């Protein structure tokens, strides 16, 4: 393996390990659920990106071909980690906050966790049963 490849792979591996550790440590250390959301979804994703770049350089230096698997995994992770962060934030808003505690959003808009996701979990407004037997509502699929 050429010397430049060894230097590059080592550098990216060390960066990846540091970022991954910082992300996981932030998940433990930070005080609030909404601030805890920052550390893993950003720092750990960057750490995985560093490991993928190191792997790409390593396999290019040893086998002489550019593999695109790592690019696929990188693109997938960078696409999905904001979506998971948004979903987890919505879960936290839905369960733990009331609209009065939050800052007011822009005119004519509301917070996403309350208006659209109306009823509490597992409880729905079922239409009244025409036979009058309201004790056992059916679960509609």
């Amino acid at each position, binding site marked *: *393996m050429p010397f430049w490849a*060894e230097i590059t*792979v*080592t550098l990216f*591996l*060390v960066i*990846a*390990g*540091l970022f*991954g*550790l910082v*992300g*996981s*440590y932030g*998940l*433990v250390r930070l005080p609030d*659920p909404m601030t*805890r*959301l920052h550390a*893993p*979804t950003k720092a*750990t*994703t960057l*750490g*995985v990106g560093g*490991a*993928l770049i*190191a*792997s790409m350089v*390593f*396999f290019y230096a*040893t086998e002489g071909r550019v*593999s695109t*698997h*790592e690019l*696929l*995994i990188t693109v*997938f*992770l960078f696409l*999905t*980690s904001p*979506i*998971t962060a948004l*979903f*987890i*934030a*919505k*879960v*936290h808003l*839905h*369960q*733990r906050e009331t609209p009065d505690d939050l800052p007011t959003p822009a005119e004519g808009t509301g917070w996403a*966790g309350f208006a659209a*996701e109306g*009823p*509490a*979990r*597992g*409880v*729905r407004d079922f239409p009244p049963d025409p036979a009058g037997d309201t004790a056992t509502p059916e679960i509609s699929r």
Partner: protein
Amino acid sequence: MIGYALTFAIGCFSLGLILNLWRLVRGPNPSDRILALDTMAINAIALLILMGIWLGSAIFFEVSMLFALVGFVSTVSYCRFILRGDIIE
């Protein structure tokens, strides 16, 4: 030199997995637990990639791709279950 860096990176991500497990056990809210599970999946992907460099085999990319897919889908379905009480409506 790559061996030392690989050992360092594998140690970092393994320590991260232990920290995530602590948050998964301790976490006061369900959102913290979902976040810890998602971070565990991402750390496992990183460990699989480092394992691929260690063994010099390219088969670990498919494994980590599958891990990424399953981790994302499981996180989103868990969030949907808490938000709506159902996953597929």
